[in-house]
């Protein structure tokens, strides 16, 4: 297995910039997830690694070799497509051995490798079938088998689970993680699904409008988002973000928002003061909020959604902004139109520069 490194990679299609000055290093045996909404450039980035698109600027390295001018077939990577891209006129066996035949691997070795790949993905009994005779999950596994059969330096996966139903997706997610560990594979995995990113990736690279926002392990991306975009993109329901102003309260700072004030920790207050900010966006995760009655930010309950194991209470601040509170199912759920107070620990608050969207790190 090998590493994949992008240095200052830009891709322009006529006037639109699909990928903007992307630098990213995927370590050997790392499972890196490229995450972002549709059209953010994540697939283009992957296709450039595969060699299906050529970068307008920058260099791409696979292993210890610059591959900018190397044909896809000589890059020693395998790709799994969203549509699986199985050859419909070939049997499962033929599909899996296609990369080996293309590389003129001798028949004996070929049969051996195909049998191995098929066995590790539970396809042994399906080898003589055509793709049309397989279920979605089986096709997906054939696509994976075709990728692993020749042990490439890296695997490139473009939303490989998005055509599966919800249940199968959860199962396949776990299988992919196991497969990655067993093969010690380097994987670059593109998805728009934050749950896939959080559960599978060693690190997540968040992309928006072609620009890399943050690269960090899932836990860090969640707990310390680099900016408003990442904060709002990760988490379900997403982080609450409310516009506010920095005010001085006694010897510390607080953020004044519609309905009340939220005091900041001394560390965060120092950092906000150092940045000299006045207009900010206050962020807090739904699970870090609690409903009370005495002190806190005043709000009115709008909607209560019960999911069985938990409950989402959507509250409106006096100026109409929505804030979601996530409660355990057994907690007393309020009723719509109830007046409540929103309470959060100061440590759970995030402050973002309202102009740039950058998160202020506690000093």
């Amino acid at each position: 297995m090998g590493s994949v490194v992008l240095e200052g990679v830009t891709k322009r299609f006529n006037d639109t910039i699909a990928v903007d000055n992307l630098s990213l290093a995927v370590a050997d045996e790392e499972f890196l997830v490229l995450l972002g909404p549709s059209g953010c450039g994540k697939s283009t980035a992957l296709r450039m690694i595969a060699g299906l698109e050529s970068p307008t600027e920058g260099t791409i390295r696979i292993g210890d070799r610059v591959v900018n001018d190397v044909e896809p077939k000589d890059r020693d990577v395998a790709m799994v497509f969203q549509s699986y891209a199985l050859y419909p006129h070939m049997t499962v066996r033929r599909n899996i051995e296609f990369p080996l035949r293309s590389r003129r691997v001798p028949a004996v070795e070929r049969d051996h490798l195909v049998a191995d790949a098929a066995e590790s993905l539970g396809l042994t009994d399906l080898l003589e079938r055509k793709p049309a005779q397989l279920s979605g999950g089986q096709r997906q596994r054939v696509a994976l088998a075709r990728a692993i059969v020749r042990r490439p330096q890296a695997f490139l996966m473009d939303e490989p689970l998005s055509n599966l139903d919800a249940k199968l997706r959860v199962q396949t997610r776990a299988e992919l993680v196991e497969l990655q560990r067993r093969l010690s594979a380097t994987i670059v995995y593109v998805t728009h699904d934050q749950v896939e990113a959080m559960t599978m990736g060693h690190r997540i690279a968040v992309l928006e409008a072609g620009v890399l926002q943050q690269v960090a392990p899932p836990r860090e991306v969640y707990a310390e988002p680099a900016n408003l975009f990442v904060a709002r993109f990760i988490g379900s329901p997403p982080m609450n973000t409310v516009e506010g102003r920095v005010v001085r309260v006694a010897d510390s700072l607080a953020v004044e928002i519609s309905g009340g004030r939220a005091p900041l920790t001394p560390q965060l207050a120092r950092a906000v003061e150092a940045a000299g900010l006045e207009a900010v966006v206050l962020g807090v995760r739904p699970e870090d909020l609690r409903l009370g009655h005495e002190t806190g930010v005043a709000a009115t309950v709008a909607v209560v959604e019960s999911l069985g194991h938990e409950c989402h209470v959507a509250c409106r601040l006096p100026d109409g902004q929505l804030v979601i509170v996530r409660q355990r199912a057994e907690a007393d759920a309020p009723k719509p139109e109830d007046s409540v107070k929103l309470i959060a620990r100061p440590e759970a608050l995030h402050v973002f520069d309202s102009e740039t969207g950058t998160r202020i790190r506690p000093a």
Partner: protein
Amino acid sequence: MTAVVADRVVSARTKWKERGLASLLLAPALVIFGVFVFYPLIHNVYLGFYRSPPFPGLPSRYVGFDQYRDVLSSTDFLQSLKVTVLFAVLTVPTGIALGLGLAVLAHQQFRGVRIYRTIFSSTVATSVAVASVIFGTLLNPQVGLLPWLGVTTHPPLLQNPTWALVAVAVVTVWQTLGLTFILMSSGLQSVPDDLLEAARVDGASAWSRFWRVTLPLLSPTIFFAVVIGSIFAFQTFGQIDLLTQGGPLKPGRTNVLTYFIYTELSRDPGKAAVLAVALFLLTLMLALAQVRLLERRVSYDR
């Protein structure tokens, strides 16, 4: 209970209503087909049972299947059949290969590709008559392109026993190329891009991507083009009439079945009727055989 029975009554009634509506909607097509296709077809078989009189004005004589046997075993017919089959063999595979080749070229992304696409498909808008006149002029031994290029044959190409059929085949391939090109282009467009991309990443060269992915996925289109092309070839008439009139020599080296029927029509209508029935059966058998034989090898599943 009553509700169920009532339901059934209603559904039976709607069924009849639907059938009535279906026949009503089919009627115009059935009338046209009946008058212009089915009736002439059956009447033609019937005409074949009557031998035409040696002199016009005398009554035709009923001879049953005798005329069918005589005509179908005659050397005239066998020669014409040979020419027809040879013509199909000359035109169909060449046409498809050329159409596919041009379609592959025009499928690439390069500057001005639209102009080429327009040029390649332009012969669709050219009638057989126009094509024949163009090539008739080009091949003309006095003013044509070939003598200008210094190529001369004796006798001239269209009167040359060896080359006349080939010349007509070339005209036909040229004239049908637009259609074949459009067919093949649409076939190519239906080959999913990500399959070819997968093959690229999987290590297949451009050549092997074409043979192992594109061509198999194109087989339904090629199959269709073979069937249609063969049927067209068996029904070729205009080029022959305008360029060679079935000649040169006797029996005519370009005397395809349709032209043979046409010339016999005024001379011996009974014989022409038999020939027409033979052509119909040949075309039918050809279509059925191709559907049966080729369909097994074609991969339709996506």
